[in-house]
């Protein structure tokens, strides 16, 4: 997946997470979460990946809150403080929790795969000007921060800030901030010179990217597109619509609903399959080295 063109990656995550977000079908949510989790953990196998528990607790909270505030539903399980807690509301909450978790894990994988240069590339497809602007901003913001810190340190070593006077310190830091803005404008002149010296502003410019569009990207784009369209068709025709209140109600299984489920399951597990395939292929290639 890492080596796919950013456009394909972006489209994939938009499709997989988007369908999951716009459907309340429990089957789709279960497979969306399964797909998101399997891909995330396969990619990060054996690595420390930071927090998981808080995300699950957040989902649990969402699942519990719904039946407390939502009293629709025909089947009353018990009464809490004079309010009925229904089975339908509990299930609805659980499905919401699944959707929340699935979306969170799709986004975690997304932000791992889409590094800043890939996002810039996407913007560059839309407008070369925006791409350049973003690229310059990405460069300037850390530079500004570094200069700010350097100036504050120098001033500190000149006894500019008094340790026991907060007002004085705030005033001092404001002065440092304002002089760093002057510095940024001043060094911006040099940058502008350097841009002009290399022909910036002399008419139309192109936007170069290191990412190329290979045949493999085309294949994946078509596959994702087809699966996405089938799923959307299933959602739009309400073949996979699911009713929670007042009682559960689902459309009778049909050819279209079966097709939709198969399409979405394939979509959700596509990255896992691709990643696993790559890992196996890599093991095999490695054995030949």
């Amino acid at each position, binding site marked *: 997946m890492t080596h796919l063109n950013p456009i394909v990656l972006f489209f994939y995550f938009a499709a997989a997470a988007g369908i999951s977000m716009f459907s309340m079908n429990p089957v789709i949510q279960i497979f969306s979460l399964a797909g998101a989790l399997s891909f995330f953990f396969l990619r990060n196998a054996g690595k420390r990946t930071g927090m998981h528990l808080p995300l699950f607790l957040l989902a649990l909270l969402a699942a519990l809150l719904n039946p407390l505030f939502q009293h629709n539903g025909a089947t009353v399980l018990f009464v809490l403080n004079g309010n009925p807690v229904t089975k339908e509301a509990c299930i609805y909450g659980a499905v919401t929790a699944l959707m929340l978790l699935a979306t969170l894990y799709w986004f975690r994988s997304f932000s791992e795969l889409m590094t800043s*240069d890939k996002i810039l590339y996407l913007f560059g497809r839309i407008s070369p000007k925006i791409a350049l602007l973003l690229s310059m901003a990405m*460069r300037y913001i850390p530079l500004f921060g570094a200069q700010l810190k*350097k100036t504050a340190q120098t001033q500190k070593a000149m006894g500019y800030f008094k340790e026991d006077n907060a007002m004085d310190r705030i005033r001092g830091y404001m002065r440092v901030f304002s002089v760093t803005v002057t510095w940024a404008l001043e*060094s911006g002149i040099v*940058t502008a010179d350097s841009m002009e010296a*290399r022909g910036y502003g*002399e008419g139309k410019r192109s936007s*170069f990217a*290191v990412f190329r569009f290979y045949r493999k990207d085309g294949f994946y784009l078509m596959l994702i597109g087809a699966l996405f369209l089938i799923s959307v068709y299933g959602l739009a025709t309400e073949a996979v619509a699911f009713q929670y209140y007042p009682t559960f109600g689902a459309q009778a299984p049909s050819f279209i609903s079966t097709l939709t489920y198969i399409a979405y399951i394939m979509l959700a597990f596509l990255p896992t399959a691709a990643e696993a395939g790559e890992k196996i292929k890599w093991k095999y290639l490695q054995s030949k080295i």
Partner: protein
Amino acid sequence: MEILTIENLSFYYPMNQTPTLKNLSFSVEEGEFLTVCGATGSGKSTLLRLLKKELAPIGERKGEILLEGSPIAEVNSASEIGYVMQHPEQQIVTDKVWHELAFGLENRNLPQNEIRRRVAEMASYFGMEDLFFRDTSSLSGGQKQLLNLASVMVMNPKILLLDEPTAQLDPIAASDFIATLHKLHREFSLTVILIEHRLEEVMPLSDRLLILENGELFAFEPPKEAVKKLENRADLLLSMPCAVRVSHALSGNGKKEVLPLTVREGREWIRRTYRNKIQTLSEEMLPKRKKVLEWDRVFFRYEKNGADILSNLCFSVCEGECFCILGGNGAGKSTMLGVTSGLLKPYSGTVRLFGKKLKEYTNGSLYKQNLAYLPQDVTTVFLRNTVRDEFEDSDVSLADFPYDFSSLLEKHPYDLSGGERQLVALAKILAAEPKILLLDEPTKGLDAYAKAEIIAVLHALKEKNVTVIAVTHDTEFSAEIADRVALFFRGELISSDTPKKFFSENRFYTTPVSRMTRGYYENTVTVSEAVSLCLANGEKGEKE
């Protein structure tokens, strides 16, 4: 074939009656390496900028500039004329190395495939494959400047203009840069016009030397001829390689012979011309003085799991002493100054100032009449809009400073030249009347004139018993001012000695004069020492 022709070029800045450039006429051959030098304000940068129409300063221009016979205004200057400036950091436009290389080609609206090929070609020629996907901000100064050169070369220019490209680099990165430039010139017969004040290395590569003085052509000929014109011109000689300075100081009495330019030629010239009966000058011993700053087994690192930047650092500095620290990049020299100035806290060991631990100085008392720190980037010293405002709060009157900068009072600190800025920043530091002065690369980016001024100021401070600790790459500078010199290596100070001993025993970290005279004379590290030894010995063939 002439590639660039300049005819009767004069230039006036707006509101200025006197021309900055006066009636210049010269032409540059294709494939020539031309070095331009001259004092600050002699019009070097103005001349170079006029050759590049996008950067031409606003003002009145007279005369013609022709590139291959056509006026400069009609030339596709963006790709035909490459321009590299002084500051490595500010010239970079984008956040990734690959994007920076492609920037100029994007501006020409070239197709993806052509950009891909040319960028790849340049990256491999400059040995940047490993840096290709890196953030530009993560590169070292030398790498940044090579990237700037590469992203100009990718446009395939016919002529390359460079305005002090190595001024902000350390000596090793500067040598790398000059070597790359030489390679481009040699392999592609690229025409190069270079403003430079590190003439030591550039002089042997130059086909011709253009010396500007007050906007006029002082000399425009091969280096060997040009240096002959410098007789009795101490001001212009100051920036010349030390072989030229030594030989000029010795043969000022009208001898016309081929003068040496490089260390090797200088060495041969001295051996051929002078006797070596007296091998060394007597050295004054320093009186014992009390210690003012003591380091006791100091350890420092930036991150918990990082490497030690300072490890087991022990040394002391005496009152009124000038202590210079040399060492490679990233050895921890600046970190050491940071710890000494109390900005960084060591995790073990103590630093004592006047016998008192640094952390016992509270509420800024460390920085009042005790210790002052001049950082490498002196722009961080200034907070106001004019030089006068900078000194508004200080108790010291302007007349009390060891040098005069009253002509600069109304200027914005950022508008000062490199040398002026350094002097004003130093003055601002001195306003706190420090007894100990910490200097980080005080001669970086300065030309020979400004450097001489800084040296004079430091000598004056020494008279006043101010202790100076300077971190520097500049061997000639430290040979001039230091009482002791030390080498910083892997977090420790290795071997501290008097400059004479230190530089005459080192092979690489040493002055050009020492390399020129070693084996023939002993302990000779500065130009004036070499000159007085030669004079004391007398010429060969003369009666003793």
